[in-house]
């Protein structure tokens, strides 16, 4: 069969063509709703790993069979998925988290945080992570501890991981 550019750009509206369009629309909707949720990063709490304004996809199937692990960057939902928080898991259930002069201690041991670029002067008294919770913090700790949103959250709130 011979196709020319006109047929490609302005195809005849046939039943088969409409069916294909419908299939593509359904697949796109399902893919971007239930598998990869598109989002734009607003804010500076994960810099320099993730910069303000970047586009990304939240892969929602990541934690179907496994639980989040330390150092995973995760997407945390609020009431729904229109606004999600991007944070890094630093401690798991049962761990004791503490920050001394900007150094993060988990179970009284300093953990390796190669992703940090900015120093901080944060101090946080020891606290235990509850069952079915994880402790998350952003990579940018150069801001005041009062301004930065971090802490423990239920793993049920984790919707997935950024795809890149």
């Amino acid at each position, binding site marked *: 069969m011979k196709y020319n550019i006109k047929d490609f750009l302005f195809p005849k509206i046939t039943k088969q063509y409409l069916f294909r369009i419908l299939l593509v629309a359904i697949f796109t909707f399902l893919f971007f709703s239930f598998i990869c949720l598109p989002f734009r990063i*607003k804010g500076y709490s994960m810099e320099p790993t993730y910069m303000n304004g970047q586009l990304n996809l939240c892969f929602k199937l990541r934690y179907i069979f496994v639980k989040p692990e330390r150092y995973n960057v995760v997407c945390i939902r609020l*009431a729904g998925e229109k606004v999600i*928080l991007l944070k890094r898991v630093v401690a798991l259930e049962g761990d004791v988290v503490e920050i001394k002069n900007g150094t993060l201690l988990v179970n009284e041991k300093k953990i390796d945080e190669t992703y940090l670029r900015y120093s901080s002067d944060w101090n946080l008294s020891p606290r235990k992570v509850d069952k079915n919770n994880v402790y998350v913090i952003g990579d940018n700790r150069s801001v005041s501890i009062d301004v930065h949103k971090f802490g423990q959250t239920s793993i049920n709130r984790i919707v997935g991981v950024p795809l890149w």
Partner: protein
Amino acid sequence: MVKAKHLIVAGVVLIAGIIAVFTFFQSEEAKVKKQFEFIAEKIEKEPNENSIIAAAKANRITELIIEPFKIIAPAYSLSRDISSGELSTFVLLKRSQYAEIFFEFYDFSIEFPEKDTARVNLTASMEGKLNPGEFVQDFHEMRCKLQKMEDTWRLKEIEIVEVLRK
């Protein structure tokens, strides 16, 4: 044969009917959402807003609450009733710190546990420019309790959910 003119008239009547149904027979969910849209509109601030408009907006917000209006914020160990006067002062004070505010509510989950009572779970999003020019953004999950009075849904209680507990 049906004339094109008749088809057009039928189409216009159909569209007008749909609009009328949506306007006059709004579902209770739509009415609740509309109240939140109204609140967001009154919180928002345009640059160079004058003080009369600011006072009027704060006043309109307080008209949408039922006293005693309870506010719960576990992150700040806060749980108390506030009067409409206190709320008005608080709104005025907070808004005055910003040169510009964009406010929106998302992800509504609305339940009606009993007649004339609604429970709403939602996300509130605020982006603002502080008076020195610094850009600020904040998001909170909220659980709200509303009561219907004189055919208007009014806020009875707001709880700010602690999604991340330090």
